[in-house]
């Protein structure tokens, strides 16, 4: 697949959404609602569950499956209250020393009058700010679309993993093509130029792991094997992160983002 084909695949609805991961990997999941400020955003699902024997806080951006479900979840485009709910649950996790696992799958944060009125920019900024020093391990997985700031707001983590065919980008290829070349039909070229695929992000040092995918998620056996192996990898990684000294963990988290950048000194 070309990069743009991969992006189209993440949007096709032929892949498991966050709720399916919660079902398959964790057990005893209890969903917790609301941001305690304004409302409950159903684009973000979150709660407590067991990963093996370990209680963890799981937060995911849910796109929904059928039409009704998609509308219910606002197509996985979170509003400020969704990001604030996520932050509330992360602080709760910090208090009770629970690791946090986030599942990212969004075309981007919700774009509309209400989102702006309630401070979409402020909500995302607060998450970046607080997650950087949250005193508990955080692991983020981009399982489908990683759309810009709306994805990053749940992905400031000790480890960021990506599915093989997922993408994670500063801008949608269509948006990029229409802004730079005034032609959204050049999206495939933009996708190639942006290099938002898992392999490129791994090479750029943005993510720590690429998770192999089954060829076809509709094959139950392949899907089962996929989730089984993912669960094992997650358990191992969470166990490793929990053993880390907290100061070391937080210093490494800061450094992981601190080191990203391409610049030079100009002596002229």
């Amino acid at each position, binding site marked *: 697949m070309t990069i743009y084909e991969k992006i189209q695949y993440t949007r096709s609805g032929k892949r498991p959404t966050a709720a399916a991961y919660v079902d398959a990997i964790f057990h005893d999941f209890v969903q917790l609602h609301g941001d305690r400020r304004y409302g409950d955003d159903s684009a973000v699902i979150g709660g407590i569950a067991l990963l093996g024997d370990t209680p963890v806080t799981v937060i995911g951006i849910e796109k929904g499956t059928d039409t009704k479900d998609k509308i219910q979840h606002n197509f996985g485009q979170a509003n400020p209250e969704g990001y604030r709910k996520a932050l509330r649950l992360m602080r709760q996790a910090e208090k009770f020393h629970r690791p946090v696992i986030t599942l990212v799958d969004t075309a981007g944060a919700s774009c509309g009058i209400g989102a702006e009125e309630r401070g979409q*920019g402020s909500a995302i900024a607060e998450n970046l700010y607080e997650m950087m020093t949250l005193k508990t391990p955080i692991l983020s997985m981009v399982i489908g679309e990683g759309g810009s*700031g709306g994805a990053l707001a749940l992905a400031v983590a000790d480890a960021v993993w990506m599915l093989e065919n997922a993408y994670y980008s500063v801008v949608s290829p269509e948006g990029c093509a229409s802004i730079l070349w005034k032609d959204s039909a050049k999206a495939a070229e933009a996708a190639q130029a942006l290099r938002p695929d898992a392999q490129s992000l791994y090479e750029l040092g943005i993510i720590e792991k690429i998770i192999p995918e089954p060829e076809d998620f509709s094959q139950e056996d392949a899907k089962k094997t996929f989730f089984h192996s993912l669960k094992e990898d997650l358990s191992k990684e969470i166990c490793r992160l929990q053993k880390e000294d907290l100061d070391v963990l937080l210093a490494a988290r800061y450094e992981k983002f601190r080191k990203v950048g*391409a610049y030079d000194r100009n002596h002229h």
Partner: protein
Amino acid sequence: MDLKSLFKKAGNTLEGGVRVVKKRSSTLSCPRCGSEYDKESVLKNYWACPRCGGYFRMSARRRLRFLCDEGTFRELDGDLVSEDILHFPGYGEKLAKATEKCGQKEGVLCGTCKIDGQNTCIFAMEPDFMMGSMGSVVGEKITRLFEYATEQALPVVGFTVSGGARMQEGIVSLMQMAKVSGAVKRHSDAGGFYLTVITNPTTGGVTASFAMLGDVIIAEPGALIGFAGPRVIEQTIRQSLPKGFQRSDFLLSHGFLDAVVPRQELKDFIGKMLRFHV
């Protein structure tokens, strides 16, 4: 400063008083009412229109010239330049053009200065450098400034103006949001004071990171401030937006700004805030 450097093109040190000499018309027309003025009378009026009060776009250096006590600005990391890490089509030429257009090497000017006698770190984004977009250099310079301020126990005053993350650097530019926010957090945890002044326009990744993280957040009147840009929202929801949407007063009334401060009063306001936090 020696005589030779007076004639050097695109000087990059404000402290030396070197200015980019460009041939351009000395008349300026107000972006709001269209009235024409000579540069001097606009300058005297803090870069605002004497008739309607509309604001002219201010370069980062001009901002600092208005704000910093005379001769106190010392630039930091002025020599950092972008690398075209993704080999993005046309990025190299765009960078060269931006430098030519505004005489700056990148989209933010950082340093230390005194404001009303108070020592502070300061940054001002550059509207004419690829619309103040945030790439690696902008992220790196602001991060270094916050780290320096933390080390030196100094406050930070920051002027934002930005179209958001710089697309041509792809995911690397997105990560700058997290990087800067982390440095702001460390500065804050160490007890540092951070004041943001949001100017027209500030959108996207800058709004969704350090613009909204100040202990005190103020804006110039009428500034467009948002996460999504108004055109994108209009196209998405297919209806026109209410008057004043995403402007400073709108944010003030929704609780996201501490105050809307006219350009002419900024220095007083900032000086006062810095004295409160000595």
